[in-house]
């Protein structure tokens, strides 16, 4: 279990959220929706991710009451932790979910609010709040579905962070996490190629040794048998036609769907 030590030990002395990481995202806040900016690759991943999330919610968590005339995710409450400019919240809101996006980067939240205002439909479906995850936990808020995409690799204490995420999932609810695996391929593609060679994302966005392996997430979440891994899927990017495909290979970018099966006594 060497990786667990690696996961937990170096960050023991650091604060829960590292200031420089928040300011890094504040700096890029205005580019969240730019189709040519540093976040553009994330925007490209978005439709595939929404498809997976929607399918996961419909398969594992959807209440029986959902009728045919409503929107597909009508009545589902979702919190997106680390929502950035709201690029995940808006499509989920359009599918009918009641979405709360939280982020610690104040500028990102401002951008997210500004962008959501462009679409009058989203008004009643998407809300944003600038706060930390621990604030939601202390308020004892719980949601049908918690999404946390591309965030775990940026936090200082992943284990503590994952346990906080678990706390805001309501019983029978879903926790959806996506991040980048710590493998040789991910170092070659997500860091060398995407940051240094192609320049799609700004240099220094990801630190290889802070990336998280699926086993590590499983270890952190399954210590009290509350969470059950429902499925995991990898994403691959085709350089030929700039398209995103789903794959069984979790080597680079992957997404995990967890379900809170047991009630906490």
């Amino acid at each position, binding site marked *: 279990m060497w990786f667990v030590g690696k996961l937990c030990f170096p960050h023991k002395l650091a604060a829960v959220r590292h200031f420089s990481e928040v300011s890094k995202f504040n700096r890029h806040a205005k580019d*969240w929706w730019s189709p*040519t900016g540093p976040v553009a690759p994330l925007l*490209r991943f978005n*439709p595939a991710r929404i*498809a997976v999330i929607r399918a996961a919610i419909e398969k594992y968590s959807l209440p029986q009451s959902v009728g045919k005339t409503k929107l597909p995710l009508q009545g589902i409450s979702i919190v997106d932790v680390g929502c950035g400019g709201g690029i995940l919240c808006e499509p989920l809101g*359009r599918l009918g979910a009641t979405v709360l996006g939280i982020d610690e980067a104040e500028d990102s939240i401002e951008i997210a609010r500004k962008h959501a205002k*462009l679409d009058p439909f989203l008004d009643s479906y998407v809300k944003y709040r600038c706060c930390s995850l621990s604030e939601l936990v202390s308020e004892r808020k719980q949601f049908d579905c918690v999404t946390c995409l591309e965030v775990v690799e940026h936090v200082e204490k992943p284990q503590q962070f994952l346990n906080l995420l678990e706390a805001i999932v309501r019983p029978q609810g879903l926790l959806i996490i996506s991040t980048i695996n710590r493998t040789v391929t991910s170092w070659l593609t997500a860091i060398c190629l995407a940051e240094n060679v192609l320049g799609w994302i700004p240099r220094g966005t990801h630190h290889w040794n802070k990336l998280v392996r699926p086993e590590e997430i499983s270890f952190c979440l399954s210590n009290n048998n509350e969470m059950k891994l429902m499925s995991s899927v990898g994403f691959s990017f085709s350089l030929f036609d700039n398209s995103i495909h789903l794959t069984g290979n979790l080597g680079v970018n992957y997404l995990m769907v967890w379900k809170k099966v047991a009630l906490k006594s």
Partner: protein
Amino acid sequence: MRLQSRALVWRAIHLPQRRTLCGKSKEYDIVIVGGGLVGASLCAGLVQSQLPCKIALVEPNLQRLLSNSKEKSGEAVPLRTSTINPASQQWLKKLKIWELLDSQEVAAFARMKVWDSTSGSSLVFHASEVGMESLGFVVANDDLLRGCYQRLQRSLQSTQSQIDFFDSGVDDFHWYFSQSGFTKWPRLVLKDQNELHGRVVVAADGSNSTTRKSANIPWFSHYYQQRAVVLTVRTEKLHRTAWQRFLSTGPIALLPMAGVNISNVVWSTTELEASILCSASKETLVKELNNAFLGAVNLHKDSDTEEYPPSISEILRGPASFPLYLGHASEYVKERLVLVGDAAHSVHPLAGQGVNLGFADAQCLVELFENAWMTGRDFGELSLLLQYQRKRLPKNLLMLAALHSLETFFSFQFGPVSFIRGLGMSLLGGLIPAKKAIIDFASGKI
């Protein structure tokens, strides 16, 4: 049924007008500007896909189109027709518009003959050669439009989509293009003072699209110095072949229509000849037409009907004429704007491809919106709309170039060129795979 549909028409037209009194601006997911064949079929496609979105259809002649019943158009034979290729027919069948067409006004042709006045060589396409039932259908435009609007009205109650009809033109467009992904919804001020905000605006308002002009999308255009003269004629015999002859002044086509020996003539010719033809007496016109199709051939009553078109006996409707342009927009999409049909591309009518390209655009757009909706995407997002451009622009451009080359190639009168042309046509006539490729291309399969 008739009464019910009248009531619907009334409601559809008068509801928005009544709402004007509030003067409140309205928000729509999709605003379609232009309710011609492409706009109306796009609207029908969106309604059929059951997307729970709000659609606005803006068309200045809406009242006439919605109430365009058979009785009103009278007994007169139609003048303007469209050649529907098999791909478009499939789509119209899927939209359940095809079944609403007056079956009498749908004429299929299984054979096409192209020949040349100078070299005398010809080329014959048979649907049976390539395993198809027909090469195309000649349908009256009015009939097609009536079918589209009937379908729209019938599906109004059973759909999740909400459609509002606006019987008005657009007075002013306000676009807010930006590069940062923060593009405000465009605002359309209608002539009847309504104000529409659209997530995405679809411009289906023809080759003179005001929508395209307002968005400053450059338009490349070339005037052929030609006009197309259209007529509906009666032939002496029944025929089921699309005839096309390339004269020194341009191509002339005889297309079989539904009805007793009725055919449509599209004659592309010089401006001068067009004006002479349009002012000629009916007797002279019949003579001119027969001369154009048959030339010096003396057609006997018992001569081979496969070889030459039947002679024309009577002018039933027309002539009318319109100028021939080739045109293409430099881009089909901007953020929150899409061009479809003739607003994006206009082609020479010599192969009857114009409306087919438009239907293919509309079909592509409906599929795109269906997929986008599945993942909650914003319909106006540039990266989404670019997918439409990537799919449609190369195909449309290829057809545009092919038709233009064909037109140019056949307009050469220089001896050697016309010799090569004749040789090429004779060679092609024996090459079934090559003919199949041409037919597939014209049928919208590629």
